[in-house]
């Protein structure tokens, strides 16, 4: 009897060990992947950032960044504006979707995801051809006589040069538009998924206690959906602050962002990987700070995800 017990106990212990071992072993490929393609590159970036072209330790890369402060400011500002616009558009959309019946919700969510099936570059190129001076929008406005009308208002003004188009492309606005267009789904989805999870009885409880629908929204739905907003902010702000394709295509280099700057240091004419690494490092620090600030608000359930 007791022998049996000892034996089964030992068996269980061995089984437990194997269990644990097996479960852990599933993680090894991922750990390896992370080590190779995340940790090592970050170390390399750090090494590059603190060395000169001759391989000596230096802080010169960082002090050299002073010239690029405006780029930092512009990047953060445009990404901030894009994020705010995404919230303003995305939250009501998410709220409206989450109130529909589950089948309609699925269809609408699919429609929101649908553009993402098209290549990111193609979508942005499409915006180029829409926004160009001779693009679809300007041609349409011209065809309906908008420019003629504006020009006619200035008739007799000698200093006036007639316009043939609006300057849409190559502006901050175009870059923001590109960001909002590309990243809006990442704002809508997390908010919607949090709102649908709110217990309908909690909303009924608030009504029952005397809250009208506006108060219910303000005091119950909004606070309970903030974690979704926080995830949304992270998922829009982080890619927006580091993008270079959108600004490159929609501003043709006139609106330079951090992403463009870094790209130039590695792949462009200004080849200087040491400076590029230093900028990347600083950008990473800024993003991490922003995220940890945001996560403090959205504590709990939906932890914001990077990348």
């Amino acid at each position, binding site marked *: 009897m007791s022998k049996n017990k000892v034996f089964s106990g030992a068996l269980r212990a061995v089984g437990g060990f194997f269990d644990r071992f097996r479960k852990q072993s599933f993680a090894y490929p991922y750990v390896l992947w992370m080590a190779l393609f995340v940790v090592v590159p970050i170390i390399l970036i750090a090494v590059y950032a603190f060395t000169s072209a001759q391989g000596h330790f230096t802080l010169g890369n960082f002090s050299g960044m002073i010239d690029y402060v405006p780029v930092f400011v512009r990047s953060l500002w445009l990404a901030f504006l894009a994020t705010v616009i995404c919230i303003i558009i995305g939250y009501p959309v998410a709220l409206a979707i989450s109130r529909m019946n589950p089948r309609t919700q699925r269809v609408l969510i699919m429609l929101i995801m649908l553009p993402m099936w098209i290549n990111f570059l193609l979508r942005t190129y499409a915006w180029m051809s829409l926004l160009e001076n001779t693009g679809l929008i300007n041609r349409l406005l011209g065809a309906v006589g908008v420019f003629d009308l504006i020009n006619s208002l200035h008739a007799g003004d000698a200093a006036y040069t007639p316009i043939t188009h609006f300057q849409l492309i190559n502006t901050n606005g175009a870059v923001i538009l590109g960001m909002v267009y590309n990243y809006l789904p990442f704002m809508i989805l997390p908010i919607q998924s949090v709102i649908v999870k709110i*217990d309908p*009885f*909690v909303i*009924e*409880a*608030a*009504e*029952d*206690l*005397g*809250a*009208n629908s506006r*108060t219910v929204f303000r*005091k*119950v739905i909004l*606070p*309970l959906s903030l974690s979704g907003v926080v995830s949304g902010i992270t998922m829009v702000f982080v890619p927006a602050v580091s993008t270079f394709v959108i600004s490159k295509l929609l501003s043709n280099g006139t609106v330079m962002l951090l992403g463009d700057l870094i790209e130039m240091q590695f792949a462009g004419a200004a080849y200087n990987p040491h400076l590029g690494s230093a900028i990347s490092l600083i950008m990473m620090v800024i993003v991490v700070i922003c995220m940890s600030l945001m996560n403090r608000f959205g504590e709990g359930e939906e932890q914001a995800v990077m990348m």
Partner: protein
Amino acid sequence: MAKELIRLVGCRKEFDGEVVLDSINLAIKDKEFLTLLGPSGCGKTTTLRIIGGFLRPDSGDVLFDGVKINDVPPHKRKINTVFQKYALFTHLNVFENIAFGLRVQRPKLQEQEIERRVHEALELVALKGYEKRSVSQLSGGQQQRVAIARAVINRPQVLLLDEPLGALDLKLRKDMQRELKQIQQQVGITFIYVTHDQEEALTMSDTVVVMNNGRIQQIGTPLDIYNEPENAFVADFIGESNIIDGIMVSDQIVRMYGREFQCLDKGFAPNEPVDVVVRPEDIDIVPVSQGQIVGTVTEVTFKGMQYDIIVDFQGFKWLIQTTDHSPVGAKIGVKIDPDGFHIMKKSEYSGLYGDYSSYSAEYDELSADPEGEGEEDE
């Protein structure tokens, strides 16, 4: 008791063409503890939600103090609800959860007034000192108390409770039953309580409303409901009952198993077919020679306080609860006093209940943990 407070007049409700409530007529008195009792899907929660204003009856009226309130939204009714799974605000602490009803009031209340009343409510539910706790840190019983405190903070005239103890374990449930009754007496308001637990209903209520299939089967005091069930459904749902086909020969004489028994019931037509209810605890086991009827024991279960034995009387199996042990296979006689019989008119439920042939299955079903059975209606 006191004056009438709420009246439902011919309330009917359908969901997707399915009738869940069929002409409900119900009067609820002020300061009464009334329980809507019935199995899942009987319409009890729907009735509660109609009273709370979360549903509108398709036809029929809801009167409050004599005034029709069909179109009054929940937040304008002097009725508050304790929800099945508490539905607490997880983003607020205990204090703010309870204060919610006060904070949404316009004109705004003074902060001191809010504090005073929240503390009062906390005292009522014995949760003093928990103000700053987050509700997710509380146990089920404590969350339940917060839900009650939150619901009474606006001093409603009626409190609706939708299976509030359903998620608690048995021991805690018993304690909370007693406490709820105390709270009701302390605040002196009407409680309308929904449950499928017959024992809970009998323990706490002034009035029990037994429902099934969207209709009220019987309204009465717990004693009435138990002793004078209206039909086979009620007799079977409340407690245990043997229900036997019988013929009312004349006043106070009922015939079953080919012989006549003395009973106390009267007022039936001569030779009217009836359902005869005999409660398992009203049956005495006697030697075969002295038995009014004789049967064979087929099953014995020890239940702690008593034995549940199943006895076969000419193919119809009875449940008898007794403190005397009789072995399986034994022939026994039984004797039933006149007050042990209860005679009911035939109803749509006749023949559906009261036979213990499939005893164990049925008993398990009745005593099964009711958890998760709440999703009825809609």
